[in-house]
């Protein structure tokens, strides 16, 4: 089966927040943009200032890139993809001498069997590119995050989950094998039946068990490249949480947005957004539109522009916009899966100080969510486009995030250091709440959690550490996150 080809290709974006990084040799072309107000000392020769999607924290480090992961992974301290992890998961330990391996130039497809829909590809392949090639032929990734600009390596290392977690599980459930260079330097082929321990430690292991070189996974067959979607308004968190589980029984893809600025009876008002692939008869005849970044935030806006007041307005505008979009319609994959990808470099709107995302999974009870949102408000928090998703059963990844319950993700602008409560205090307080309710936070978004909280949230941490040490006895691999959370020696 072949759909009409997409008229345009995916436009592959640059890595992370893409700021000019000194002191690389200046560009041979006109005036390179210079970033202002660097924290701390200036980087040593060959170093750059690196940060994740939230632009916080920033560390000094080195980077290497090229098309041979096999060669370059020998000697690299960590691998990184498109830099869409928000916090420090994709950053090398500060001032590391060994470089971070940026995988994005290693992006070749290696094998595809249309009868089984199994694809093998290099770890640097971008999801948008895969969609561009395979969606017109009737295949889609079995699990997709909220952006198409992630690499296969990043999807495995974070064991990502999507709007279909309650039916499909996380990405790792669909991975058949990985080629990985472990910290001991060896190249290994691993999978659910080969080195299953190492495999389970690698899913969600945030790159700390080895450099993922190749990924083999099962694509999903879809009847058309279009989505039938429905949006329903909900008036409060008491309505939202039960309705989300209810629609999940019939719909394969579900998500909700909620307004964090409302108080009292309207707390947690929002909209449910549900979808399924359109059948061939339902799909329009026109070609599917590619995945593209259309608008760009061309420069950094001042920190503090997004504050509780402006975010409150933004939430209300958003809520009204949802109101107008109620009902059933046909959506493109970009509209349905990647609405945020329409605006490139949007983290610049949070300014120099950057932002963090707090994502946790909690029991699917309205009372728990009400207390959580009230706590967040009491601490002076406000967040735009707050996403709520249901999670199904745990997968095999030892540090994978999803577990039964409902997940919520808050975008939090980093406050100036002098303010109380500080961003650190806010996250600590939310973590205490999450722990009290048996929940946990998602490492791909985190920058502030303390080691003791993280370990209390992840009961398989000791088991994971044992596997990690077995394959990396000398501790060659590490990240800024593993220094903060996983007990690496400084």
């Amino acid at each position, binding site marked *: 089966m*072949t759909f009409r*080809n997409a008229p*345009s*290709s*995916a*436009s*592959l*974006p*640059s890595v992370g927040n*893409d700021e*000019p*990084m*000194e002191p*690389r*040799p*200046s*560009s*041979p*072309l*006109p*005036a*390179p*943009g210079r970033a202002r107000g660097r924290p701390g000392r200036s980087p040593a020769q060959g170093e750059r200032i690196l940060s994740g999607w939230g632009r916080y924290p920033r560390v000094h480090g080195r980077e290497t*890139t*090229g*098309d041979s992961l096999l060669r370059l992974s020998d000697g690299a301290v960590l691998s990184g993809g498109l830099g869409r992890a928000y916090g420090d998961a994709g950053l090398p330990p500060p001032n590391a001498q060994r470089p971070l391996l*940026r995988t994005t*130039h290693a992006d*070749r*497809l*290696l*094998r*595809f069997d*249309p009868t089984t829909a199994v694809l093998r590809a290099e770890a640097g392949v971008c999801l948008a590119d895969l969609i*561009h*090639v395979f969606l017109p032929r009737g295949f889609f990734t079995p699990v997709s995050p909220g952006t198409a600009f992630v690499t296969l390596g990043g999807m495995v290392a974070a064991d990502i989950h999507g709007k279909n977690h309650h039916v499909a599980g996380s990405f790792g459930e669909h991975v058949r094998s990985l080629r990985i260079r472990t910290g001991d330097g060896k190249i290994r082929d691993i999978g659910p039946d080969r080195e299953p321990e190492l495999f389970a430690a690698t899913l969600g292991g945030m790159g700390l068990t080895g450099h993922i070189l190749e990924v083999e996974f099962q694509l999903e067959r879809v009847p058309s490249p279009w989505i039938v979607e429905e949006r329903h308004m909900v008036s409060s968190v008491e309505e939202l949480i039960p309705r989300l589980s209810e629609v999940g029984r019939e719909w394969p893809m579900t998500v909700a947005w909620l307004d964090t600025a409302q108080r009292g009876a309207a707390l947690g008002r929002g909209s449910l957004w549900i979808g399924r692939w359109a059948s061939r008869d339902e799909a329009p005849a026109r070609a599917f539109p590619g995945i593209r970044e259309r608008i760009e935030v061309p420069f950094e806006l001042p920190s503090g522009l997004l504050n509780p007041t402006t975010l409150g307005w933004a939430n209300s505008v958003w809520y009204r916009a949802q109101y107008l979009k109620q009902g059933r319609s046909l959506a493109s994959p970009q509209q349905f899966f990647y609405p945020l990808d329409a605006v490139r470099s949007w983290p610049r709107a949070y300014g120099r100080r950057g932002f963090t995302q707090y994502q946790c999974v909690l029991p699917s009870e309205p009372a728990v969510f009400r207390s959580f949102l009230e706590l967040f408000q009491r601490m002076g928090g406000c967040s735009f486009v707050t996403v709520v998703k249901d999670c199904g059963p745990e997968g095999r990844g030892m540090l994978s995030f999803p577990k039964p319950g409902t997940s919520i993700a808050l975008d939090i602008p980093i406050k100036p250091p002098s303010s109380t409560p500080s961003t650190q205090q806010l996250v600590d307080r939310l973590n205490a709440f999450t722990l009290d309710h048996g929940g946990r936070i998602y490492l791909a978004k985190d920058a502030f959690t303390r080691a003791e909280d993280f370990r209390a949230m992840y009961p398989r941490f000791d088991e994971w550490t044992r596997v990690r040490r077995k394959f990396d006895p000398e501790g060659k691999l590490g990240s800024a996150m593993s220094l903060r959370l996983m007990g690496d020696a400084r």
Partner: protein
Amino acid sequence: MSGFAILGATRGMGKQLARRMAERGDSLCLLGRDPARLEATRTDLSIRSPHAEENAGIFTASCDLLQPDTFEPALESAAKQLGRLDGLIVTAGLFADQAQLEASSELLEQLLTADFVNTVLLCELAKERLLKQGGGLLCVFSSVAGDRARTPVRLYGAAKAGLSHYLEGLDHAYRREGLVTLDVKPGFVRTEMTAHLAPPPFAGEPSAVAREVLAAIDRGSARIYTPRIWGLILWVIRLTPRTIMRRIRF
């Protein structure tokens, strides 16, 4: 379905351009110096081709830009495998920093030879072939660095200036006979070639360049600045008087 030979499809802008062409069903013969990398690229492009399930029509032939004696056999092999050669695309090229080039006359000679002398030699051979069969496409990657001498890339820029001059000549002379010459002038593009440099404002992505170049090929353009905005930037730069250029050490 058309058949093109492409030198430089293993990385960067050439890789993205070859992908867009394979995805729309063009036949390609990949020319290059490293057999393993050529084969890996062939596999990638074959999977992308809509003809994947039959024979994708992606071939390879060995060709080294630093060895002119490989050129004629490479073109011959491409023509034979493709059945008919509709054109040649050259994205291969060398880049080095001004300081490196000044430090090593060997490296300088290599760069000037690859980016100017040998690229011209290759194009001359392709031109003869294409004219003999009534025309075709010659699409060659030069650079905005050839438009106006810029201090940190003046040697590289000189080779590209010569190359663009040559390509313009071909266009003037042979367009009537059916030989379409396209001079591609990329601005700063994020590829492995520039990975060690700080990206300036308006730095582009290779995939966006590929899309624009493909559209220019389809239109039969003679020259394209890509990403588009660089056309405007270079217009201003070309108009700037020399006294100012000296003062700012452009």
